[in-house]
């Protein structure tokens, strides 16, 4: 690991940390425009995070150390994922530390910690949220892995840099499998990032919450870290989607010039992706929780279909 490689790695992580709240702000703004509402400021998420960090943390009487540790672990797992996902460049030093399967494992680690912390205080809403989160997760995780497996089978590797390089350099043929995988990935991303139609990030009705129900007991810096981690998760999923389905422009190697060239392109792609997300959220309605298995089951089947299509037609 060279010093400049390490610095590029830190740069990518810093870009992820800085851009993630902006992406959330952008999606909220687009959604407000699409719904004919007055839009909140673009930089509101940063201000919220700063405000939360300044406040005194209020912790419930029955909370254990696990409750206080969880926001840090979740944030750490999301940072680790952000270092691994090729967003600016492919050949970064940490990229080889975890492949696509390990990346999904990292997301699962964060989910498990946050679900356990939700059960820690012993409130009705906390355990309800934990149960629903694990319920959505056990269906979404296999679907996400199947999408990644399809890309892995195409490129003969589960290593994300290799996948991106292969997909970016393929001849201009059409991969029908990637079309199915793309739809499945979009559905999984909506579910995993607590978006409509599975969850509603703007809800104020406790009974329909999933993610919000789990973090109800958190306040101040703990909540700030969890919000930041959630924004990073959205950023990571967006970057995985871009890496799989729009890989052109990601720097190959880890030189500064390539990364500098890749950055504006990344911002443009994320802006477009964020607008698409806001559009999907505006055009669809939230599902009942027991319709979620159908939604995610469809995603899972589409991902398996993508794999079969690849095996049947493309190999």
């Amino acid at each position, binding site marked *: 690991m060279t010093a400049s490689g390490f610095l590029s790695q830190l740069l990518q992580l810093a870009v992820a940390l800085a851009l993630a709240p902006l992406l959330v702000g952008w999606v909220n703004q687009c959604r407000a425009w699409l719904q004919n509402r007055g839009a909140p400021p673009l930089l509101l998420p940063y201000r919220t995070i700063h405000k939360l*960090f300044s406040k*005194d943390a*209020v*912790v*419930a*009487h*029955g909370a*254990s150390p696990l409750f*206080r*540790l969880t926001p*840090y*672990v979740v944030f*750490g*797992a999301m*940072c*680790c994922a952000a270092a691994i996902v090729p967003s600016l460049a492919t050949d970064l030093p*940490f990229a*080889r*530390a*975890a*492949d696509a*399967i390990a990346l999904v*494992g990292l997301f*699962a*680690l964060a989910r*498990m910690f946050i*679900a*356990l912390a939700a*059960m820690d*205080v*012993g*409130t*009705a*809403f*906390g*355990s309800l949220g*934990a*149960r*629903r989160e*694990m*319920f959505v*997760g*056990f*269906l979404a*995780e*296999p679907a996400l892995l*199947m999408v990644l497996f399809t890309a*892995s089978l195409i490129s*003969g*590797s*589960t*290593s994300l840099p290799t996948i991106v390089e292969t997909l970016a350099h393929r001849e201009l043929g059409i991969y029908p499998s990637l079309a199915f995988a793309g739809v499945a990935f979009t559905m999984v991303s909506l579910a995993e990032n607590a978006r409509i139609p599975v969850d509603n990030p703007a809800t104020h009705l406790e009974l329909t919450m999933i993610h919000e129900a789990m973090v*109800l*007991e958190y306040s101040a*810096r703990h909540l700030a870290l969890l919000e930041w981690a959630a924004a990073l998760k959205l950023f990571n999923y967006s970057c995985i989607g871009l890496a799989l389905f729009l890989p052109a422009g990601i720097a190959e190697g880890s030189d500064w010039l390539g990364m500098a060239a890749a950055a504006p392109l990344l911002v443009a792609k994320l802006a477009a992706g964020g607008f698409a997300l806001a559009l999907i959220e505006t055009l669809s309605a939230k599902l009942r929780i027991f319709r979620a*298995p159908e939604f995610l089951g469809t995603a899972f089947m589409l991902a*398996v279909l993508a*794999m079969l299509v690849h*095996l*049947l037609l493309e190999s």
Partner: protein
Amino acid sequence: MSADPAPTFALWATLAAIGAWLVLGAIGLAAPRRLRFVSRVLFPLGCAVGAALAAVALAALDDAPATLVLPLGLPDLPFHVRLDALSAFFLVILGAAGCAISLFSVGYFRSSDGTAPGLVCFLYHAFLASMAAVLVADDAYLFMVAWESMALSSYFLVTTEHRIPEIRRAGFLYLLIAHLGAIAILLCFGVLQGGSGDYAFDAMRSATLAGAWPSVAFFLALFGFGAKAGLLPLHVWLPEAHPAAPSPVSALMSGVMLKTAIYGLLRVGFDLLPFHAWWWGVVALALGLLTALYGVVFAAAQTDMKRLLAYSSIENIGILVAGIGLAILFSAYGMAPLAAIAATAVCYHALNHALFKSLLFLATGSVLHATRERSLGRLGGLIHRMPWVAGCALVGTLAIAGLPPLNGFVSEWMLLQAFLFTPRLPQSFVNMLVPVLAAALVLAAALAAYVMVKFYGVVFLGQPREPGLANAHDAGRPERVALVALAAGCVALGVFPGPVIGLLEPLTVMLAGVPALAPGQGSWLLLAPISEQRASYAPLVVLVVIAAVVLLAIAAVRRLWHGRVRRAPPWDCGFPLLTPRMQDTAEGFGQPIRQVFEPFFRMERELPTPFDAAPRYSVTIGDRLWHALYLPVARAAEAAARVVGRLQQGRISVYLVYSFLTLLALLFFVR
């Protein structure tokens, strides 16, 4: 096979360990009621023997096979013993897990109205010794003797609390299925010897089996060892027997005894049988994945913490058998490197499961001692009262859920690599099937995370559901040491997979012919089975990055802002009348799974009407296979017994007539 490899130090040491365990057991038998002596002297000595055995076996992993003929047994049937990489690896599992479990037992066994402590000590050490004997046996005779002693000693251990009728019933079911399996294994050896009449394993290796006989032998082995391992549909004894047994025994049975069945399957499948047919692999793969899904779905619906863990063992056995199936499939097509990855994943997972399942069963033992409660509905909030047990159990929970950077993830990762990189298999439908079957494995793994959140969240987190839980106490010192050692093993195996797989290399070469790691790829830090371009995983880096971010974040928050904390009542959306009964129960947490997988279960619901003064809701979860398969067989057996029972008239004259008729018939035939 070399003609007659000389016995080595390691083989002698293994035999000495078996002897030492038997002696310890015999001493315990001589002092049946002296609890202090048994628990303060004999169990620690048993623990030391386990540690020594693990160390010796670890050192012997890359030794050449050593054999010895013992002058024991029947006059012309001496015992053959052999120590090769496969035996040595499973001896490591037995020694390491046995060591920790014996240490835990120091503080566990109390005098009760069940079996006397000295007798438990005898049975426990006989159980350990017979498992070790199974692993070194080199002929069918010694193997069956050890196998049956293992079944019998564990049966008596399961029925330690033999005054409770359900426990006697669970023990009977276990014994019955263990013997069904033993018959199949005996028949399998009968087929393998190929008519030569020589039951030494060496003779079986050189025997030539014609036609369908190898397949018959393989499926007899799959049935026989599957009965011991809890493979579908022979799994019903496992969720009955594991909760019935004392916790250290459950840990030993689940952590180690199930692995002897995996050992047997590997021994017959990869050592004694001359070749593999591809469809054996497909059958084992399908059966394994079905078992895994079945086990994990049932685990999600359980309300007894030990039953939940028992079903999770069924899931893990399913994963192991699926891995074996995959290895067979690849080696049948001559794809040695992939077979090596699958075989390594199987061995790694066997080791992992021995560690984390022992850890969790021992943790339930501590909980049981502290609270006298096994039902999840009456636990909760134990993380405050039992921080050591809760901390170690958290490591086990994360490991068994297959999360990086712990050990459960490493073996699942390896197995998925084997699933994914199926190059062109000749059978095109198998070629399609294998990656799609990976979906089933992934689904089982994701459900395992659900189950483990339920287990840990309901037992250790939240508010205590019963007032009595406030008096719960943490585990004693020996128990803590045992739990911490097992948890440390989970972390070490998770963070350093490269060196561990390097150690397993002789075993992989024995099973698949080539090592799992391509030479020159990866390092002690980076695990890269085929090449770094294909797939790589460096758990230490992941752990360090997460830990660094956590520490930096804590420091930065303190530095830039402040670290003030205020304690207050829970918010819960402003609801002030929170009681422990408002938390999710185990039934509630499992409800979504019950609803999604409804066809798996046989549910009997009792719903209250709006007019009930004291409304009661109850749901009983039954196993469809029990009703569809076991009860008809039991009814048929009973009907047959009733017919045969007509012969029993209870009058001596009738029996004399029977003897007379028998004599006549014999005279007629023998003439």
